């Protein structure tokens, strides 16, 4: 457990599945160097296969007694999907006179699966009772990370100052037990460098007082970022004061720090004549309970009550929070905190290496990384 914990809240009622977060993350971090197939941030349609396929069934996490569970390591071809691309070269070298049936612009590999392959499919019968909603997923920066516990090299660490979980790429030897250990499958093997990589919660941005790219770019303003112990932060209010934001699959025992406001605002079902069935639940509450635990019932009630209160009286702090008027309120990162922490601990910012090893007695040179002062 870290001294403080940064957390993110995502309001699923407002996620429109536009994948802007996905793209913001991809262009910033994962469009190169063996990370092409990785989505540190992805938005999946629920119910759906997810990314990687059926990640909820792949094990990892902890049992009730606190023992790390075995897991299955997905692979690129079958479970994530090989990222295909189109090359200028294929166009430039294509013989347009040969009467080819296929166009010159061809994928470099045959597309078979990808992170949003089954987007918007959902389940049920249109229009009577079909439903789906989006779950944007990043690393949960767990308080009890499965990846960290599984690592046989102590290469994964949780930063004291904000609980961000990072891989020390100098120590990582690409053994991949972390992937088996993470129940969310949010740590990935980079085959090109033979090391594991994951969402870093944009710590270089955070240390400068900027929110993670996915949160900054979110057009639906569904993402709140702040310290859980900061009572002024909207994250604190949503998680602890109003208790409407809940962790995803907390039954895995990793104590995740990304919280979700469950989707409550689906339209009612229609009957055979296409008439609204009053009071019906299009998104089954049992599904929400499976994802967000038993507390989801209370959360739904609070959300409904506050919505009604707002409608009647025009007042509700919770509804104001969820409307998300200003980025400056949604993100409370307190730039000075990091500056002060660095000064006090004598550590430099922007050093993605576990300090436990940076003065290690065993190596003369620590890393190939350029550490910025």
């Amino acid at each position, binding site marked *: 457990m870290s001294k403080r914990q940064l957390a993110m809240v995502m309001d699923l009622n407002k996620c429109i599945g536009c994948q802007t977060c996905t793209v913001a993350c991809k262009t910033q971090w994962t469009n190169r160097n063996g990370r092409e197939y990785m989505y540190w941030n992805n938005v999946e349609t629920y119910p759906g296969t997810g990314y990687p396929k059926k990640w909820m069934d792949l094990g990892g996490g902890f049992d009730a007694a606190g023992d790390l569970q075995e897991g299955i390591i997905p692979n690129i071809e079958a479970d994530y999907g090989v990222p295909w*691309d189109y090359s200028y070269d294929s166009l430039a070298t294509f013989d347009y006179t040969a009467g080819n049936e296929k166009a010159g612009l061809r994928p470099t590999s045959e597309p078979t699966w990808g992170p949003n392959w089954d987007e918007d499919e959902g389940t049920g019968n249109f229009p009577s009772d079909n439903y789906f909603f989006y779950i944007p997923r990043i690393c949960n920066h767990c308080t009890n990370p499965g990846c960290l516990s*599984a690592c046989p090299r102590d290469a994964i660490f949780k930063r004291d100052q904000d609980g961000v979980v990072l891989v020390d790429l100098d120590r990582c030897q690409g053994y991949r037990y972390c992937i088996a250990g993470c129940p969310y499958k949010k740590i990935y093997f980079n085959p090109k460098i033979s*090391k594991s990589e994951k969402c870093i919660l944009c710590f270089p941005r955070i240390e400068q007082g900027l929110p993670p790219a996915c949160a900054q770019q979110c057009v639906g303003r569904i993402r709140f970022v702040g310290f859980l112990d900061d009572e002024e932060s909207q994250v604190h209010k949503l998680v602890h004061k109003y208790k409407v934001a809940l962790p995803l699959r907390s039954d895995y025992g990793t104590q995740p720090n990304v919280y979700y406001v469950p989707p409550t605002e689906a339209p009612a079902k229609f009957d055979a004549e296409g008439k609204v069935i009053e009071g019906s639940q299009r998104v089954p509450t049992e599904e929400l309970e499976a994802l967000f635990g038993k507390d989801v019932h209370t959360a739904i009630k609070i959300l409904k009550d506050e919505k009604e209160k707002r409608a009647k009286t025009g007042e509700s702090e919770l509804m104001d929070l969820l409307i998300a008027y200003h980025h400056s309120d949604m993100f409370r990162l307190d730039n000075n905190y990091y500056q002060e922490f660095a000064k006090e601990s004598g550590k430099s910012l922007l050093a993605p290496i576990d300090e436990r090893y940076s003065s290690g007695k065993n190596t003369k040179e620590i890393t190939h*990384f350029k550490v910025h002062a």
Partner: protein
Amino acid sequence: MIKKLTLGLMFFATSSLFAEPAITAIKVSNSIDLSKTKPNDAIWSRAKSSTIICYPQTTIKFNDKKANELNAQNKAKAANISAIYNANSLAFKITWNDGTQNIQLPQKSDTYGDGVAVQFAQKFDDPKKLPYIGMGSKDREVLIYLQKAVEKYFEPNKDIEHQVSRDNTNAFGNDLKKYDAAVKALAINEYHKVFVGEGFRSMTQVRSDYGKLGMDMSYKGGKWSAVFTKPMSDEYVDISKVGAIPASFALWDGDKLGRDGLKYLSSWVAVKFQGKKGGDALVDELTSEPTGDVQAGEAQVKAMCASCHRFADQNAAPAAMGPALYNIGGYSTSAYLAESIKEPNAVVVPGYNRNAHKNFSWYSVDDNGTRTTTMPPMMSDDKSIADAVAYLKTLKAEVEK
């Protein structure tokens, strides 16, 4: 009946045959640069090969479900190991059977390369207090040479300009060829690494040109052959002034998703330098058979150890309660076993990440980082310990044919 009797007699007459083997390093001319030796060089015909058994590492179990299934029934593997030396270097050649050649590929997430390692003890003046076999222990550090079969890999963050996929560049034609060549030049084509370790999880890579010396492996006809060359003297381990050293060997089978602790591991093996004096105590210690009474030891060990450790048919202990002893006789020395029974705190290695099995702490750690084992001293009289060691030494998988 007659056959049985003969075998019994043979056992008595030639018990030394059943003792642990040693490796004799043959002296070669100082003018030969051993760091350039390849597995198929003619010079190896002058060396004498010893059969060293590497046992499946079962002390701790990892959390890769598929790998655990593939490795559940592992038998021990025999490796043929020979050694040559001169004033500058010591070289090992290791040959072992592996029906499948597995190479880790840079575009696949589910390939694991076959691999091999040699472990050297930093200090070995007291042959009864060698480093813990699993990558050393506190104040008993080891130096590990490791090579794995890889196609190629890249170091992170060296050249950002050449990190994007070739299809994401704006280049085509000759420019694309140039781009490909620049990327190719950044690739590292061999996995040759050297680590310093003082116990599981502590292994740290030596980041200098040091590790790039003298390693090579090649596959032919269902066999891997690998060569490791170590300078006789360097800043980590000095072996230039002794008559014998301890070394241990490990093999990885990529076909069974082998990596890290999913390996086959030998015990400390005595390597005797031909024509050099000294090291007799070490050779004796590592080649002698345990003298205790196996049956008496078995009774004691089953009565005293099975509540925390799993071994042989004893599986009552919770899985993560204590280190599993299924192959402990294969990769531990008698001296280590005796020491651990009598004085469990002498060597307390970091086991699992303590967070992985919170209810089964193998040890506690104080503010100074000193580990204190959860295991109490089990026996104190020499006879009981010798008997227990004799039994524990029988705990090992049979050798693969």
